[in-house]
């Protein structure tokens, strides 16, 4: 097992390198640059700035320089947020996004699984239909609709929750953004759980468990559930990575100092290093969480041997 994990981590290095390379050259291929504005800069100033950020050197040399700094853990200076390095920006924003994302995915997994199990056990009955219709609505309504709507209802009209402040992550300030982030995930997870649960409940070994004379609770929790959770494990890995790297929409609407907006704003502003930093973070998270999912798979399914 430990050997397997180490080998997977070693295998992640070329993957990360390819991601960094593709992202680097794609960013540079996009028209415009970080210092292009409405007004044309005087040529000598532009030359100075470019020289300061190594932008006057050939692209391959720039890539080499960037990689070299990256190996020492230096993500470089942000091109747009002056006086901040990318490392500092991420270090400031990541805890916020991490806290929001982990809360959202944990709540979504618990509620989604519970709803999915309830729906599966009541297949094709009213409970099932209502849970699944609600889930369909949850999937189809985007966060940029739920976020302002919930803010309006619970924050502005009812006045129960604070609107658009972070307040260092006080519980009251977390509720709205976490809910908005969790809702679509609850929908997806409940549908996934229902689907695999229904399949497992029909399987032969569950029939055996019933024939043994076990209680329905034991049949469901001990025999059906562990099998039904397997497909969920592979979904939760990437979903967690997506949530903890933040969401532009939610961060903008709730005015949260997370890293989700760096990604989009960085790309729009051609803030090369900032975008690269967020991409590397996101890619590493995806790789790590997929690895965790695979290890969990082996724990849940004795047929899977990690070698």
């Amino acid at each position, binding site marked *: 097992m430990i050997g397997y994990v180490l080998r997977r981590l070693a295998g992640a290095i070329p993957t990360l390198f390819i991601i960094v390379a593709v992202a680097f050259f794609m960013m540079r291929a996009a028209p415009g640059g970080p210092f292009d504005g409405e007004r044309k800069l005087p040529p000598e100033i532009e030359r100075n700035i470019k020289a300061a950020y190594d932008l006057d050197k050939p692209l391959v040399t720039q890539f080499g320089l960037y990689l070299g700094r990256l190996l020492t853990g230096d993500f470089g200076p942000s091109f747009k947020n002056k006086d901040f390095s990318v490392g500092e920006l991420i270090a400031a924003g990541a805890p916020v996004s991490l806290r929001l994302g982990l809360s959202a995915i944990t709540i979504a997994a618990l509620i989604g699984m519970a709803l999915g199990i309830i729906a599966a056990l009541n297949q094709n009955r009213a409970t099932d239909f209502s849970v699944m219709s609600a889930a369909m609505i949850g999937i189809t309504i985007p966060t940029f609709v739920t976020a302002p709507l919930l803010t309006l209802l619970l924050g502005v009209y009812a006045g129960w929750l604070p609107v658009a402040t972070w307040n260092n992550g006080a519980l009251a300030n977390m509720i709205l953004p976490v809910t908005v982030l969790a809702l679509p995930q609850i929908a997806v997870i409940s549908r996934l759980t229902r689907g695999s649960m229904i399949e497992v409940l029909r399987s032969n070994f569950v*029939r*055996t468990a019933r024939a*043994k004379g076990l209680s329905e609770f034991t049949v469901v929790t001990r025999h059906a559930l562990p*099998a039904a959770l397997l497909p969920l494990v592979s979904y939760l890995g990437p979903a967690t990575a997506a949530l903890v790297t933040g969401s532009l929409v939610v961060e903008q609407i709730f005015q949260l100092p997370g890293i989700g907006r760096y990604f989009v704003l960085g790309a729009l502003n051609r803030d090369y290093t900032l975008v690269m930093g967020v991409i590397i973070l996101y890619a590493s998270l995806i790789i790590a969480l997929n690895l965790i999912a695979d290890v969990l798979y082996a724990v849940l399914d*004795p047929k899977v041997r990690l070698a």
Partner: protein
Amino acid sequence: MSEAPLLIVDDLKVHFPVPQPGLFSAPRPLKAVDGVSFTLASGETLGVVGESGCGKSTLGRAILRLIPTTAGRAIFAGEELTALSEAQMRPRRRDLQIIFQDPLASLDPRMTVGDIIAEPLQSFLPELDAAQRRAKVSAMMNRVGLSPQMISRYPHEFSGGQAQRIGIARAMILEPKLIVCDEPVSALDVSIRAQILNLLSDLQRDFGLSLLFISHDLAVVRHVSHRVLVLYLGKIMELAETETLNRRPRHPYTRALLSAAPIPDPSLERDKERLMIGDDLPSPLDPPSGCVFRTRCPKAAEKCAHEVPALAARGAEDGSVVACHFPD
């Protein structure tokens, strides 16, 4: 067999609603088991034979209440199982077990063999501690021909024959009175079949088990059963002592089944008269009128289309019954 039978099945019906195309069409019933009655004595093996889709497995599972029954009764040791609620049925499962056709798929892949076999003990004999449970499991594994050293292995590490032994050990651990064997050897290699069949016979002898032995293979059923019940489209065609059925099959369907079973002697097999019944099984959603077998019966006559033949002795004096207007 003068004492009261262990199991009485009385006019049991299992109908599945099949949804029809069209928004307002009512679902039509698929009569998987349609008015089956028989008894099973203590220590007896009753073979249930018939081709795929005739309702054999449905019958076995309906008796154990693993699928809901539509009408009729199943009475086990004087108690009407079909009248019990799900919760009332649970304690009875101690005496009523089942062995499935697909041995590997019937074992929870995430549990060790020891846990699989011990689980019914935890449920029904919670007073046993872990060591006592383990001792019982080891003894039972030994009894069914599995080395107790394999107690911590997972199902996928076993062959089909071994997996079926695990299934048998799991069913036997509570020493039930009746085991429904639902095609227990159909998925197994021919070379393994005899071992499993002999194991079942030994267990029956040692524990006084009653077996309801379901198979599509008449050769297997004849080998293990005291009596044989021939099922066709959910109805009993013939029910007789194995010996009688072999010697003098009276229903044309039974004769066709017997003639389809290969004889392990090439010259006899070549010369044997084969009774072909052609065609496939009619749709159980739309069974033929009168006698359900008439569409494939070489002796079908006018009467067969109008009148359902009752299951009756029809001249036999050995207790065998046949549902045919023109029995041999």
